[in-house]
């Protein structure tokens, strides 16, 4: 018998369909389907493949006061995500097979979405000794993305070696592009605003010089390069050039860099302190154009929870980072669809299909008979007011608190399990099924 029957879902081509799910997989897509254990009538709301985040900070192990794998998974599901990628800057750092397997196991136990660990490129993210990336790739966690995120792999020789080394297991290096010498003690985007506020500037060239260098290295050694959280107009130009040369580079942008600018720092409220920093309006417009025209491949949240005390202080003392999972869809709609820069098909591509392809998450990013039932139901026409006290995250550092934004996630299905119903966590969890688990 059909496990779940989703009635009256609107596909991207505007067809209204019923979706039957059995054993965690889409069994049939058609009309007037009947008979199921659970029927969910979604009243012509939009169905999309579940979103895939390639850049999430879950803080576990080590900093469970700000986020756990479970709370982060719940936040992800409420944001419409069915897969997330846990960054390596935990404590201990995810630089061994043991740590990535622990994170993957916590993800399975949570059972709310797929949790794919990202492995560190270098031991302790220190940039000095290469981490055992092959061991992480061959572990039960099957790591494919490697990143020292938070730190840049700034040594060009280390970057070259890492890009070469991961080729043997089809890994990808996700670079946090930040030249450290140009950003010592930097606090915010360098420009008119930083000069006025007396906060140490973080020049765009610190990001762009690394992007330019790494594009050249990736081309030279013939490896794939993924650039994390692009923030500058110059960076967009560099990626555009690289793609025009056929260099294998992909790039991501965060929702917050698509909407917010550095003038928010004028409040000195550290909720706006983030790495890389919020940039100028012209950068934001260039990022939007880049995402719309395909220069930027995907949206990634860089969801970065921090406890209250790490933000409720003077700017220089505060931690970098902001929440993103629960607001990503709405912010992308606000900045890209409300502005008519892109359509829902492109949104589905940049938030689901393409990130799944880049990372090799084969059970995500598509909505097809036979595929895993990882999908989300969106109400594009509703609006909501962001309230940090209602977040599923353990932290409250969202810069969007109090903003009214378009589009809500109504349901999320993970391997056919109804994990989010009417925007709320149901408590259902995926118990595991060897036929369905992503390989």
């Amino acid at each position: 018998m059909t496990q779940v029957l989703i009635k009256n879902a609107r596909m991207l081509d505007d067809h209204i369909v019923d979706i039957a799910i059995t054993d965690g997989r889409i069994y049939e897509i058609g009309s007037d389907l009947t008979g199921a254990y659970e029927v969910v009538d979604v009243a012509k709301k939009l169905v999309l493949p579940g979103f895939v985040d390639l850049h999430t900070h879950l803080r576990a192990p080590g900093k469970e006061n700000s986020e756990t794998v479970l709370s982060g998974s719940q936040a992800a599901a409420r944001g419409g995500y069915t897969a997330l990628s846990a960054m390596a800057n935990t404590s201990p750092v995810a630089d061994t097979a043991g740590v990535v397997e622990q994170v993957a196991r916590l993800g399975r136990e949570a059972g709310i979405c797929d949790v794919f660990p990202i492995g560190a490129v270098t031991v302790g993210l220190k940039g000095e000794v290469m981490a055992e990336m092959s061991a992480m790739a061959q572990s039960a966690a099957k790591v494919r993305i490697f990143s020292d995120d938070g730190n840049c792999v700034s040594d060009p020789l280390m970057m070259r070696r890492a890009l070469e080394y991961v080729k043997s297991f089809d890994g990808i290096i996700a670079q946090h592009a930040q030249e450290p010498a140009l950003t010592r003690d930097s606090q915010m985007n360098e420009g008119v605003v930083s000069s006025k506020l007396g906060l140490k500037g973080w020049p765009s060239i610190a990001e762009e010089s690394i992007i330019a260098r790494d594009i050249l290295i990736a081309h030279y050694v013939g490896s794939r390069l993924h650039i994390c959280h692009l923030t500058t107009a110059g960076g967009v130009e560099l990626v555009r050039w690289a793609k025009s040369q056929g260099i294998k580079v992909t790039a991501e942008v965060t929702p917050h860099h698509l909407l917010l600018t550095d003038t928010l720092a004028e409040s000195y409220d550290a909720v706006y302190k983030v790495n890389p920093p919020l940039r100028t309006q012209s950068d934001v417009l260039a990022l939007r154009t880049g995402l719309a025209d395909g220069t930027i491949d995907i949206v990634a949240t860089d969801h970065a929870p921090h406890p209250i005390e790490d933000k409720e202080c003077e700017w220089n003392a505060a931690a970098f980072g902001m929440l993103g999972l629960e607001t990503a869809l709405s912010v992308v709609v606000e900045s890209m669809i409300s502005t008519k820069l892109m359509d829902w098909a492109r949104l589905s591509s940049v938030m689901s299909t393409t990130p799944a392809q880049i990372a090799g998450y084969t059970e995500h990013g598509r909505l097809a008979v036979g595929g895993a039932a990882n999908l989300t139901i969106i109400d594009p026409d509703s609006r909501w007011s962001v309230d940090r006290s209602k977040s599923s995250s353990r932290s409250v550092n969202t810069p969007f608190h109090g903003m009214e934004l378009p589009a809500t996630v109504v349901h999320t299905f993970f391997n056919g399990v109804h994990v989010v119903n009417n925007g709320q966590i149901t408590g259902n969890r995926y118990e595991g099924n060897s036929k369905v688990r992503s390989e």
Partner: protein
Amino acid sequence: MKNLLSIQDLDSASIVEILNTARELARITDGPMKKLPTLRGRTVVNLFFEDSTRTRLSFEAAAKRLSADVISFSAKGSSVSKGESLKDTAQTLEAMGADLIVIRHSASGAAKRLAESGWIQSAVVNAGDGMHEHPTQALLDAYTIRAHFPDHENDFSGLHVGIVGDILHSRVARSNVILLNKLGATVTLIAPPTLLPIGVSQWPVQVSHSLDEVIGTLDAVMMLRIQSERMNDSFFPSEREYSRDFGLGAQRLAALKKEAIIMHPGPMNRGLEISAASADSPQSVILEQVANGILVRMAVLYLLLGGTRIPTEGVLV
């Protein structure tokens, strides 16, 4: 006015009000009554997270001349390294009865955070926050300029002020640029390009890399202190080269207009940004700045703690 956080928050009328109040306080305390009872029973806390003996003493003297009780709290370094947060420190001091907190902090925006985060009710005076602002320094500088150019009582238009040196890291320069602009002065920043902030072209100033080209046109020249930590950080090759190009030495002293004044927020590096002859010349008003600092800070404390009228000689209020 509840707080004094930034010159940006003041219009020219409130700047002039503070300067006039300071002058009135000077007139009164110049007589037999050196100390006024105005703030008796009020508590001013000096919360200094950064070493600054002269600013702390100046605020302390100002508060005491108004009969306020003064508590001084010095904690070098950031709240993080100290283990206690800014919020907790401020709330603790308020619980001890503070009516007004004077804060000096190495982090830009610390005073604004303290005043506007809802942590405390006390009034807040910014005594220097990181590289952002030092509003009472700009006010005392304006007070000093005004005293020497009486034709420009409330309007500095026609006056040309040069600010020389490390503009990039200087809160004194930022506050002065804003204030002098609000009062109508022409301001020229004189520094090597490495010590000018990105975006300075959008400030309401002229910029020069040659002190020699500008020196003869200035009515006031403010020499900024070169911090020792800049000297080994490639902002300029050596102290000698900096001093040669941007120091106020004998030749540049001679090139100054006779009525021009020489200013320095202190403490000075004699022989680096300013020669002994310049610092001690009759055109130097550096010690006047120190004295005026107390008056201006008295005026700020007086106005913030609810002073509505200025006491006249012999009349207790």
